[in-house]
């Protein structure tokens, strides 16, 4: 006589899974990006907040509309569109018109992500691909880092509105532009972020805080950022030209959005290799390519192009670096 009278679920092992889902991962990445965003708002004023919000809304809305229109399951609740929106906003200068982040967000989600298959199937980093698209399509607007200088007698409201940089800065050139003109890098300012640049890339400190959070949570591994930064520094040190010095190398590492790219964009899951050796190769190629663009390129925008080019190489890298299974590699002690 059966003692149970209800239906039981029968499925294949394993029957317990860890409670950590991809939504949790994306939420953690969004949390890790917040310090950089907060600093950007502090530095550049409330317009930066507006750009971030517009970008995020455009990304989420595009994803929602697309999934509804194609009658697929709706997954904007998994925060990946939010992360793409934040990353895109962080690569934009503060004084651009608001239709740029909206348009860029739509492009990033629709063309780079959704049309190629959705979550996990994008072949390029969506935020960076959108940025490159905007750079090519609207070049004069996108490189306008001009910030309206305000006088010292302004009150708190103006400080909030325009950001600290507008009040304290001497010139509105980005550090890399200034270096091309022959000036030295002001490393401390570049580390804390009191410089001009795009919204998210200025403060290496805030980005580091976020990166340490992600590393501690085991969401990203140190492999790609470390190999990337190490190769890049070595390349700059060797090929940087006449005025190579410690200041020069460190300045190049801290400036131009390299930190943002190394920790948050190069480590994007869908576009980086999933094998250990593959990640090392990826970091090295990225470092070399960024170095080439920085030293020999006409604009100061090496990183974005380098990353999307190496993203295209990822499937090839994965194919070449298949890990050897347990037992096929040489055992220790030569047994």
């Amino acid at each position, binding site marked *: 006589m059966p003692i149970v009278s209800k239906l039981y679920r029968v499925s294949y092992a*394993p029957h317990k899974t*860890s409670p950590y889902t991809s939504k949790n991962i994306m939420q953690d990445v969004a949390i890790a990006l917040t310090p950089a965003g907060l600093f950007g708002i502090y530095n550049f004023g409330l317009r930066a907040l507006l750009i971030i919000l517009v970008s995020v809304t455009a990304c989420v809305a595009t994803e929602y509309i697309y999934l509804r229109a194609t009658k697929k399951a709706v997954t904007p609740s998994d925060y990946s569109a939010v992360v793409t929106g934040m990353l895109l906003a962080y690569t934009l200068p503060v004084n651009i018109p608001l239709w740029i982040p909206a348009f860029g967000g739509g492009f990033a989600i629709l063309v780079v992500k959704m049309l190629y298959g959705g979550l996990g199937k994008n072949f390029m980093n969506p935020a960076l691909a959108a940025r490159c698209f905007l750079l090519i399509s609207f070049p004069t607007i996108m490189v306008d880092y001009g910030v309206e200088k305000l006088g010292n007698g302004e009150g708190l409201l103006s400080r909030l509105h325009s950001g600290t940089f507008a009040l304290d800065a001497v010139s509105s050139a980005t550090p890399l532009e200034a270096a091309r003109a022959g000036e030295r890098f002001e490393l401390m300012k570049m580390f804390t972020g009191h410089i001009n640049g795009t919204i998210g890339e200025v403060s290496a400190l805030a980005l580091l805080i976020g990166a340490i959070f992600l590393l501690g949570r085991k969401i990203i591994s140190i492999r790609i950022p470390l190999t990337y930064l190490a190769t890049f520094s070595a390349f700059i040190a060797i090929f940087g030209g006449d005025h190579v010095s410690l200041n020069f190398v460190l300045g190049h590492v801290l400036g131009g959005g390299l930190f943002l790219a190394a920790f948050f964009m190069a480590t994007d899951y869908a576009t980086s290799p999933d094998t250990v050796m593959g990640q090392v190769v990826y970091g090295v190629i990225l470092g070399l390519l960024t170095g080439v663009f920085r030293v020999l390129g006409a604009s100061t925008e090496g990183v974005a192009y380098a990353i999307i080019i190496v993203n295209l190489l990822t499937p090839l890298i994965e194919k070449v670096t*298949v890990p050897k299974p347990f037992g096929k590699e040489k055992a220790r*002690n030569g047994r």
Partner: protein
Amino acid sequence: MFYHRWYNLSLNVKEISIKTNLTYKFKKRGVTMFKKAFPGGIDILDYKELSEDENIVELLPQGEIVFPMLQYKDEKTVPTVKKGDKVLVGQIIAEGIDPPLTNLISSVSGEVKAIEDRLIEDGNTIESVIIENDKAYTTIDGYGVTSNYKNLSKQEIRSKIKEAGIPSYMKLTPKKDEDVEYIIINGTECESYLNNDYRLMVEETEKLIEGTKIVLKLFDKAKAIIAINDKRTNLISKLEGLLANEEPIEVKPLKGKYPFGATRPLVYQITGHKLMSEMDPIEKGCIISGPETVVSIYNGVSLGIPLIEKVITISGEGIKEPANFKVKIGTSFSELVEAAGGLAEEANKIIYGGPMMGHASHSVDVPVSQESTGMTGLQEEIFSEGPCIRCGKCRQVCPVNLVPSKLKQYADVKDQDSFMKYHGIECCNCGSCAFICPSKISLVQSIQYMKKERGAYSE
């Protein structure tokens, strides 16, 4: 959103405090305490505290006794009795006709009621011998004849093991006895919820040691190593106390990272040899046995009692009173579940074995067989399967260095060549990848399917 890695530092109030735990580990292993024991693996909550302190309770069967014609490694078994025959305890009721030639032995006395198909743990129905228990437990002649293993030759010990119906007979008869270097007693029990091996080792420690000595007599050059989870500090101290003068038996505590009890990680941790999937451990001079087998070897050789009883754990959040039972082989699991208080209201899954590698089933009317370990009643949290985000976590935790996300990709489109190029056949079925996958993809199922297509033996 809590990070389950921190479990190993959380307080398990029934054990001694964390400080002594860490000091013990450090004393035993030195700096290698921080070293990785084997590649990959996951830290999981093993919920063993639900039943680890419950003493084994003997349960006599109430209903009919069912013996499925199923043996180790799918060998063919045929019944040697027919309907209407009277059987006694210790009588052979089925024998294997292909090697490894193990016999099934009746655990009760009574009459053969029928020979028909019955449900077993993994969901198949198989021909079974069904015996009506007369509750008298009359034994056959020659049952219970004691002997001293020291006076027996190797051949005599082996034939006694075979007569006792213990499936390891073939394992213990390699081509050359001198090849065997290690006898590994796998007391690790890495599956969650199960405590049957642990309770057996705690309550019958002397039998375990005597059984190990019997096995050691068969192999002159071998050393015995009892592998155990290093959080079982009481048992480890007890074993070390009893083994103080016994060469060559050694206790080796292992870091409790799932799946440290699987064949290949275990051999690697103890001997440093790396095995591939098709290799038998004997090729590297190891024989792996469970503590239950060793105790039944002692029973069979020294006490003349065949393998007719098993220790089973009934545990899980879906069971009202988790417990450990000693039952006759052939008892229905329904009686055990009733003795454990029954299934709770919220239970929505019945698993034979543990949650990582066990079989889910729809019914508790399944007999205890020689390979049963326990039953878990779970309240499963159901996630919907999402797309692969290519995070690489599955590759990080695989103990065999594979890339499960790629393997599933190829398995789903039935691309056998790419599957083999990515070494899919090496998969050891531990389930770590599917456990950690943030999108809850059914990785093990697809890889298993592809392995079966290639004709690989699935563990």
